[in-house]
């Protein structure tokens, strides 16, 4: 049986790391009328499509090695999303 699975890796700057991009976006959001917006942080989502069952333990290892730099970022893997 053929099936495809999509996983998402969400990578965000750590709260302790200054995110100047987030600050710039926050300022623009305030300008546009959301005066009460507090902290804004900009991260990224990496979508991975698999054919067959993904090896989530291996993906977790690759997140730590490559997709996320844990000096400055945190990550989480969002579970199987039906495609």
């Amino acid at each position, binding site marked *: 049986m053929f099936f495809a699975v999509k996983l998402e890796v969400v990578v965000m*700057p750590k709260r*302790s*790391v*200054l*995110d*100047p*991009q987030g600050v*710039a976006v926050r300022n623009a959001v305030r300008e546009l009328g959301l005066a009460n917006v507090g902290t804004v942080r900009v991260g990224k989502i990496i979508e991975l499509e698999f054919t067959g069952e993904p090896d989530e333990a291996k993906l977790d290892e690759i997140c730590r*090695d*490559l*997709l996320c*730099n844990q*000096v*400055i970022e945190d990550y989480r893997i969002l579970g199987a999303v039906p495609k």
Partner: protein
Amino acid sequence: MKIAVVRFPGSNCDQDCWRALTDGLGVRAEYLWHKETSVAGYDAVILPGGFSYGDYLRCGAIAAFSPVMQSVIKAAQTGMPVFGICNGFQILCETGLLRGALIRNRSLLFLCQPVSLKLENNRTPFTRLSEEGTILSMPIAHGEGAYYADDQTLRELEEGGQVVFRYVDQHGQPTPEANPNGSRNNIAGICNPSGNVLGIMPHPDRSWDRRLGSEDGLQLFRSLVDTLLSVAA
């Protein structure tokens, strides 16, 4: 003596480094393509500036896993001098050979300007010919050059003498105004505990001849060559 200048797809300071070594010092330098799997036969490795692999994912992140870097990592761990400049510094942090990371400049601007640097550690192969406290002028050219490490790591770097260069004002003071990019503790360059791996954001390869506006950068290459000669002697 033979020094390797690594070329990644997207390197753009490889020729500057090669020129500093060959034209500046008369030393033999060779380009080493990122797909090479060995640094055998070389006495030192330079990781030049640029935008390796298009800076995709994070600056230096993909280069850190390139074939050539696996052999550079091994060589560095056994004492070979490895000198990362700009993108090369970012790559060294991504490999874990150097601690911390380089993040987006606080201003969000790509900065291309001369800066003043204070040498804080002359016990590395790259700085041994200069006095500590020397102020050097070199250009920076980066968008992601703000050095970041957590408090604990910073403390260990400072206590271990691993901060090699700091951004300073004309009086040699590391003031906030002299900090171009938001680097913690005004850090412009650090080394590993044994000193054979140095990463620096400013460009000695663009300041090795008076015609480039400064020749202060040549001293770093000269120190490296002097080190290699004294090892060979």
